[in-house]
């Protein structure tokens, strides 16, 4: 057997099982979803294979555009708060002595490795009518307030679920910084804030962008948190998709919503890599 034939055989043996699997169970399903955006729903669910642009014009209905807008707003707000909490946290972790650094990092990641549904459930316990927060407020002579089943509760749940995904890339970016740069800036007379603004922050922009993406992506497409903490109304795109697929049985329109979701994320990814290259 010639070496080049051996190489090709090797490539085939190693690559074909995994790639075949991905083609059948990832590529084909995605192409199916994509093609469904062009078809009509059947009267009793299912799909009628007649091409139509109806799904896309329905997407432009203010009702659905509003849901996309709300999703952008809630995911964006979550990302912003995560950044404001996560940056100082990552910054301080990076300054800790080696031993404590590991402890602090594991402590950030630990909740992330527990069951997702349980983590969301914890907030039902805290925010509910007779829950802990309302009891605390009552002791102060306030409330009770309806803390659950609103957009604030959704942001809280999203933040709780994905904050670790902001801290980790930020920590990696800050840790990589050369401390001498900051010393040089301080020696040249810059204040702590100026050093942060002119040295630390610009050099950690790629980490900031990665962290924001890590939080925004799962927040934007979420349906579990808005359903559990937002009261089951169709608030975010994820809820709509879930309803179209499992309740309304309008798979073509559900597919169109999913395409819109992916399109927003792809635009963000492109923007991120563009910003990272410039930064």
């Amino acid at each position: 057997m010639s070496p080049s034939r051996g190489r090709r055989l090797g490539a085939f043996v190693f690559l074909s099982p995994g790639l075949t699997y991905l083609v059948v169970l990832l590529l084909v399903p995605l192409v199916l979803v994509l093609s469904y955006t062009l078809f009509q729903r059947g009267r009793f669910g299912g799909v009628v294979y007649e091409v139509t642009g109806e799904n896309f014009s329905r997407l432009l209905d203010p009702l659905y555009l509003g849901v996309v807008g709300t999703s952008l707003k809630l995911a964006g707000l979550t990302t912003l708060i995560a950044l404001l909490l996560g940056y100082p946290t990552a910054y301080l972790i990076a300054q800790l002595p080696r031993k404590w650094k590991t402890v602090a990092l594991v402590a950030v990641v630990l909740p992330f490795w527990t069951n997702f549904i349980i983590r969301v459930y914890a907030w039902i316990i805290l925010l509910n009518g007779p829950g802990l927060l309302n009891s605390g407020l009552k002791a102060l002579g306030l409330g009770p307030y309806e803390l659950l089943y609103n957009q604030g509760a959704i942001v809280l749940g999203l933040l709780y679920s994905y904050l670790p995904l902001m801290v980790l890339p930020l920590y990696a970016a800050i840790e990589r910084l050369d401390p001498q740069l900051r010393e040089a800036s301080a020696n040249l007379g810059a204040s702590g804030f100026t050093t942060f603004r002119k040295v630390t922050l610009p050099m950690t922009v790629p980490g900031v962008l990665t962290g924001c993406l890590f939080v925004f992506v799962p927040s934007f497409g979420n349906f579990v948190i808005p359903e559990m903490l937002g009261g089951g109304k169709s608030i975010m795109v994820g809820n709509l998709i879930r309803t179209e697929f499992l309740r309304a049985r309008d798979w073509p329109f559900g597919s169109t919503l999913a395409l819109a979701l992916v399109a927003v994320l792809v635009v963000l990814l492109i923007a991120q890599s563009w910003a990272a290259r410039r930064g």
Partner: protein
Amino acid sequence: MGRSKWLHVPFWATYVFLYVPIIVLVVMSFNSGKSAYTYEGFSLKWYGELAQDERIRDGLVNTLIVAVGSTALATVLGTLLAVGLVRHTRSKTLDAFALMPAVLPDLVLAIGLLVFYGMIQLTLGLYSVILAHAVFSMAFVAAVVRTRLTNADTSLEEASRDLGAGPVVTFMKVTLPQLAPGIIAGALLAFTLSLDEFVIAFFTIGNTEQTLPIVIYSMIRFGVTPKINALAAILLLVSFTAVIAGQRITKIGESRATD
């Protein structure tokens, strides 16, 4: 450090925010009363009720079946894929394709598979979830094994070939043992991800079976009881132990590797 004192506020806020809900959940699991919110006194009775709940037990068994099945599938396919991608091709497209399931929103993969299973008229059940979980798990296994592979020393494989061993023997006796820590780490990651996975399982499991996250989800929809708190406390304990044990194991592995 004096100037950055104000940074301590968000720092501690992060940890308080991350841990208060967990602590409240655990405390409430020992509640003797019927409410999941108001503490009335210490009791272990909800743990006893939990042990007798058949639905939870079935859910746990199903979750383990799915996790073991998808991990086995993902580990074999992901390891082969990683070797193929590092050693046998330079295609960036294939690289991106292999990692795609790890970055694709879970909801999109979930509806894609639901549509696909519907098209080929597959009866939904545990095996359809196993196949589904292996899709994203494989990407994670491949990513972990890859890092190990790019750092691996190829001279051992060359030596094996020079001494007359065939490609199969070389792969089994030299490459695989070298990759073992990466494969184990990847498999553990796949297993944990599958245990916790909700969205894809929810869409692809059908109406006859339930995994544990789905059981918990539907229990919560019917109302919260301290029983769910007790289950939550146990799951928290299990995953905390697993993460800390995993941390220890990788530390030992690293110190051995550098020796």
